[in-house]
């Protein structure tokens, strides 16, 4: 048990995965000597060699397409896309090959590819470095999409993603890379909760707030601030955005009667839309208010001097809760 950052926890998880299974390979831009621009792969090339921690040419489709081939050859490639905004050149290989290949092969050829994607805003970056593309992947059958919100989950979930025989996109909330918390490296990933389940991170009764990745901290802060106003919010860390853990959210909504979904991605056709549609169907008679959504606007991610205006914050979460309570 040691206090560490999410970036270091991911590093430790990757190291464990490399140790456990010699078929695990890491590939990406600048992940070798540099250890990745966020140092998540720091020291791994030195310890596991250039054949297993591979600096790739600067071509995302190339990374993803060769990962497909490596998977066919029995490897478990873990690819890093340097920033969210640079995953799009690889979109075809992800959507047409990685996602569909297992079904196409009648189950003969699994695609145990893990796609590491530092995502989201709030770090004062230039354009294309703050995107939240999860809806694209979640809408794509054949993929799984998860996002850890804290170091411990990051440590476990990266290993679970790598161990999973399905392709998993793991969205790493880059603004939380430096958040610190306890990480217990002795945990057995097989007996840890499935990464595809949600977790109630704060029980409450007034309303349910569902979120994932970078927004979990924001929503917990909102819940804390809300206490002063007499709000007792239940906060759910979805952890997985595809599949969604509907039973956990529905159980909460049946109790609270209200749901607010929070994410950085644009609200329009964002994950909140699916949750709203689905939860309304599941809990039609329990809902006291429509499911409300807090998220990005229908605009490109703005220049960094405006990002605080764009990103959901504590106030916007509470404002939505207020609106839900006003029904």
């Amino acid at each position: 048990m040691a206090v560490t950052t999410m970036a270091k926890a991911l590093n430790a998880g990757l190291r464990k995965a490399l140790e456990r299974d010699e078929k695990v390979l890491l590939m990406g831009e600048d992940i070798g000597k540099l250890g990745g621009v966020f140092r998540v792969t720091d020291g791994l090339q030195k310890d596991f060699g250039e054949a297993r921690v591979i600096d790739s040419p600067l071509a995302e489709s190339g990374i993803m397409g060769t990962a497909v081939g490596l998977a066919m050859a029995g490897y478990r490639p873990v690819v890093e896309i340097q920033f969210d905004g640079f995953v799009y050149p690889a979109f075809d290989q992800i959507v047409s090959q990685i996602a569909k290949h297992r079904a196409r092969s009648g189950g003969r050829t699994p695609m145990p590819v893990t796609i590491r994607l530092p995502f989201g805003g709030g770090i004062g970056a230039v354009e294309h470095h703050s995107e939240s593309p999860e809806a694209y992947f979640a809408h794509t059958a054949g993929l799984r999409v998860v996002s850890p919100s804290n170091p411990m989950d990051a440590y476990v979930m990266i290993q679970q993603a790598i161990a999973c025989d399905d392709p998993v996109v793991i969205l790493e909330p880059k603004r939380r890379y430096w958040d610190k918390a306890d990480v217990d490296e002795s945990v057995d990933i097989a007996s840890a909760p499935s990464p595809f389940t949600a977790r109630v991170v704060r029980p409450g009764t007034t309303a349910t707030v569902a979120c994932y990745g970078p927004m979990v901290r924001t929503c917990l802060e909102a819940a804390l601030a809300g206490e002063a106003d007499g709000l007792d919010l239940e906060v759910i860390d979805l952890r997985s955005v595809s599949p969604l853990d509907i039973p956990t959210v529905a159980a909460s909504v049946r109790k609270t009667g209200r749901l607010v979904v929070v994410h950085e991605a644009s609200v329009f056709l964002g994950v909140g839309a699916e949750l709203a549609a689905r939860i309304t169907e599941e809990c039609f008679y329990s809902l006291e208010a429509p499911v409300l959504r807090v998220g990005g606007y229908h605009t490109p991610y703005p220049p960094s001097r405006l990002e605080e205006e764009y990103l959901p914050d504590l106030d916007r979460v509470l404002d939505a809760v207020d609106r839900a309570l006003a029904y």
Partner: protein
Amino acid sequence: MTADGGPELVQLLTPEGERVHHPDYDVDLTPDELRGLYRDLVLVRRVDAEATALQRQGELGLWAQLLGQEAAQVGSGRALRPTDMAFPTYREHGVAWTRDVDPLQLLGLFRGVTNGGWDPHEHNFALYTIVIGDQCLHAVGYAMGVQRDGTDDAVIVYFGDGATSQGDVNESFVFASVYNAPVVFFCQNNQWAISEPLERQTRIPLYKRAHGFGFPGVRVDGNDVLAVLAVTKAALQNAREGNGPTLIEAFTYRMGAHTTSDDPTRYRVAADLEAWKLKDPIERLKVYLARNGHADHAFFDAVEAESEALAVRLREGCRSMPDPAPDSLFDHVYAEPHPLVDEEREQFVRYHASFAGGEH
């Protein structure tokens, strides 16, 4: 661009069936092996013809004909060792044949019974790839796996002249050269990408593309099964020995339509087709075999009979191919349980059962 492939063209058997020699490439085959190649060519062409006919009869949704490309495919396919891996497009029926994939499994794909069909691992023959160029990266990745496994297997990947314009194909050249991967890029330049002539993809011969990435490129007469075999073997050997990738441009011609949905009379002239007919890949081998006493009438008759039997088997097999079970559409999407897919399948089954019960 010269229509005859130009002076760079590697050829070992002329269109007239004359055995010629090349300073860099040669093959030394027994009469048995030569007859085997002839048999391959004839049977592969027959598969193609039957499939085309079955499509016309409504048994297949589509068929992508290989007519004219038999030698390019059989020659390169027969250059492989069983443990080598091959990555096809959607037209590699001849390569599939050399990898012992039952042609009925190809028909299943074009009939719409499956999006895959065979076991890629059993045959060392990947599934057909329809998105142009995607498989080139898969092949390089697989070759990187072979490198790590430490075997001396090699990998071959097929693609067309049109595919050379795709980013993925060029990225595969980068990865293969930078990692020195044991892969052979086999481009069947059949002169057309649907209706677009080669000039829409390049202004120089395609084999030269490799030079820009720092590995060898060679143009071979794609209608000459011996030359294709020789050139591919050499390239595979090179790969095995750790010398990295080679690009082979098999200069050939798509004698048929792009697919059964296509109407080539809209975009190309009959004269070209006539000219290429004179370079038929099967005819020249037949002449060579006959002229050199490597095969007699009995042999040719036996192949013909085998071809007839194959045709019968394909027709019957295709017509009696069952449709997949409706709820199989939920199969194999995920390896591990997935609540949404499970739920959808359940609803689907329940909904269909309601019809069976006459509720609707």
